[in-house]
């Protein structure tokens, strides 16, 4: 089992969710996060005074999937979430030891 952490633009959330559902991804956790990459955000102006915006709002989607579908999902998500501009986001793949369903108590097999 793998955990896919996807940090994407907030405007791309609906598209990515639709793409994930066509790939039969059954559950997900979505969080509102803030952060920046190498560019460290950008500068804005308020009433003639410049100020830095370093923590930009993003959406993080976390899904747990079996190892065999990871590559398909990665390719789809990256294609869907990409705009070509700075700030498109990142995807990370982490190993998962175990997963349990709280209602039924059974171990996730996926």
């Amino acid at each position, binding site marked *: 089992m793998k955990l896919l952490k996807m940090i994407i633009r907030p405007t791309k959330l609906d598209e990515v969710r639709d793409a994930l559902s066509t790939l039969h991804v059954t559950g997900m956790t979505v969080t509102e996060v803030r952060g920046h990459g190498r560019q460290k955000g950008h500068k804005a102006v308020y*009433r*003639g*005074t410049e100020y830095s915006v370093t923590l930009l709002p993003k959406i993080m989607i976390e899904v747990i999937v079996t190892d065999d579908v990871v590559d398909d999902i990665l390719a789809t998500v990256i294609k869907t979430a990409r705009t070509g501009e700075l700030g498109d986001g990142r995807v990370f793949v982490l190993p998962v030891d175990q997963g349990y369903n709280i209602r039924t108590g059974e171990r996730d097999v996926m």
Partner: protein
Amino acid sequence: MRLLHCQDKGSMTSLITIRLSRLLRRQSLLSSGFTLAAIGLLLALYVPSSFAQAPAPDPAGIVTGDKTNVQDAAGNSFVVSEPTDKAAPDYADKKKAFDEYQAQAAKEPLAVKLADGVGHVRIATNFAWTLNTGYLVLFMQAGFALLTCGLVRKKNAGHLMMLNFAAYVFAFIAYYAVGYAFQYGAAAINAAPGNLGGVPGLNKFLIGSGLWGFVGGKGFFLTGPAYDAGSNVLTLFEVVFMETAGYIIVGSICERITFGGFLLCELFMGAILYPIFGNWVWGGGWMSQLGNSMGMAHGYVDFAGSTVVHAVGGFAAMALAIVLGPRIGKYGPDGKPRAFPAHNLVFVVIGTFILLFGWMGFNPGSTLGATDLRISVIAVNTNLSAIFGSAAAMFFWWFKFGKPDITMACNGMLAGLVAITAPCAFVSPTFAVVIGIVAGILVCLGVLLNERVLKIDDPCDAISVHGFCGWFGAVSVGLFADGTYGSGWNGVGATSYLGAAGRGVTGLIYGDTRQFVMQLVGATICAIWAFGGTYVVFTVVNKIKSIRVSREVEIQGLDEPEFGLLAYPEDRAEMEVNA
């Protein structure tokens, strides 16, 4: 304080005395000083001054408004009074008119009786007008609360709302107790409001007399001659104007002032700073009478309060902002200002529109009567200055910084409104436009001056909008007034002025240099009074006990530490467990 059951009266008295002195000793020196001063003031001023001769006050409104109040459109009185000055050149004509009136009155007594009804209706019309425009000005409280709340950071939203709310409450208390009496206690002498039936009982200066009055002396706690129908109209109308000056200071002191310090500011504004200058200009005091006493044109003229209200508030705000110092983090170590973006522009715009709407009461209402038909010109002038102020500010900012700024568009409108407040009755629409454009640009320059050069932190730009533009508004009376209105203003030139019959307040462009000088001097006196008085008093107060919150409280935001509540409680991450 529990009273023990005592047999001996003497021991009970000494017991009460011991308990009272213990209570007083527990209070700090400052607060017990204030307590004693308040008690002393109460005792000293609550003595009804029954010595001056004046008609009895009319609390029920049943003797106000009669044939003596009947006038035609031009202001000619229906009742012709007997001329008293036998040596005057027009005595013969006046005596003839009086004799004719007497003869006709004898022939048609029913017409004379009807005139009493007409006079009453005229006064009633003006009562309704003045009260209703006063309610519009009251509504401006909501506008300013929204405007300022939107302009500051989210963590202080509750604090801003409480400041605006408490401002209304506490400044009112001060004005009710002594402010109205200081400002209008002598109105009958030089500034009787004829449109409301006059306030004949308010006829004594506490300090000064005749043409050199400084502080009024009747009507404390709205008792005695102030418990009168006509006087109460004036009270309602003038208290909401005072409240405007009261909330202006909120704009510059917010996000770092303690609530206790703020209450002192409001009491000071309502009791001393506003009413005394208001007496000088509107209450028949010395500045209004400089035309009579020193030949300075019509004396100092300020129609609806560019200086009496706005500059007093704006320059007091400036002094307080300097005493308090800038917000933490406003200026970086290199001295450059940092941006604290507004947290809710929706509030800012709605607030501005409410203020514009309320100004329809502020300016036209200052005629104190719907029977003064100049009210329409005033209303249009007010709007013209507002929109041209906004447009000018928008384009200026667009040109200078590349984008039109919403907050400066709003400030530009308010600047235009403040600047037209003094001249609105005296200028033509053309010059209302000019005043608006100049004010719109002036406010932008003022904001940049305060923030970047003087380094005075003014979160809501109260100093530029109300202080600088208020000063300019009063001066523009002396520049652009065209003489079509205001004949006999401040008791000058009732029959003719500058060679023309019926000519009113006139400015430099139309040939009256003295009025221009008077306006320059008067507006500057206002700035010195408001800034100096506030600066001196609050530097002392600040030394006794700081009126600025601690560093930790300021960084956290004042909502919770000062009031125990958050304006936006969802900002606090908390788990609530309901059993």
